[in-house]
């Protein structure tokens, strides 16, 4: 990828222009990182803003119109909706497990079948998440199956 840095005139505002034929995963990730500043995300805990690395997150869960992020030790709240998180999070690591949950693939300890083509994912904190039938193909694709 070619990177060009231009010197703007005095009246011009600093600007980043992305020239591409289509927004592939790498460019989207880069853009998201630019938008969000880093691989860290803003969360809320006890009315305070906390920065947490995306890699630390086990899963996101939507409960009563609120979205929570779970790490090994903590639970944080985010103001983003699950569909917004899906756009921000790296698609090769995070996937929708069911209507209310987004899981970090790297934090899955094991998978076992559940009734009716569903699967149960045991996460590294021992928490169990059901992967709905319609989201199983995406998981398989992520795992290269």
């Amino acid at each position, binding site marked *: 990828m070619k990177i060009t840095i231009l010197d703007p005139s005095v009246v011009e505002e600093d600007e980043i222009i992305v020239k591409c034929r289509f927004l592939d995963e790498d460019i989207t990730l880069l853009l998201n990182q630019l938008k969000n500043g880093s691989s860290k995300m803003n969360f809320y805990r006890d009315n305070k803003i906390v920065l947490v690395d995306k890699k630390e997150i086990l899963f996101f869960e939507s409960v009563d119109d609120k979205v929570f992020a779970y790490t090994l030790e903590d639970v944080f709240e985010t103001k983003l909706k699950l569909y917004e998180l899906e756009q921000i999070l790296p698609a090769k690591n995070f996937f929708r497990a069911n*209507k209310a949950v987004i899981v970090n693939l790297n934090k899955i300890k*094991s998978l076992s079948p559940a009734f*009716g083509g569903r*699967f149960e994912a045991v996460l590294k904190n021992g928490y169990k998440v059901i992967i709905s039938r*319609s989201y199983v193909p995406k998981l398989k694709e992520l795992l290269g*199956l």
Partner: protein
Amino acid sequence: MKEKIKFIISLFTRILSGIIIIDTIILCLRTGKNTQLSLIDIFGIILIAFLCSVLYLPFLTDKVFSKRKMIIMNVLYYIGINIISLSIGFWLKWFYFTKLSSFLPFELVITGTYVLVMFIFYKIDIDTADKMNQKLKEFEI
């Protein structure tokens, strides 16, 4: 919807195969290997397989259920397939409720087919889970 139709077709073929396998075994044991089935009997078998497959549609939801609810759903499905099979079987005079020796083998076909089909699906899911767990291990390395 496309995925659901695909699943129902696959369930239909498995139920149909299951009924034919279990039915053949039981008929061979009960009435001998020269037993013949009429076209109406074959139509009945196809109808049962079709209705039992369609009955599974409400279970193909993305809602997350607890294990208890899933067991209840399984029991409801089993009751549903019994109602369908017994109704069609009674209508086609395959058995009589008053004659236990005709009713029990028929119930055995229903239960046997149910167990066989569920076992096939469970085995497929176990294999898929094994493959995914293997890939997860590779990811960790």
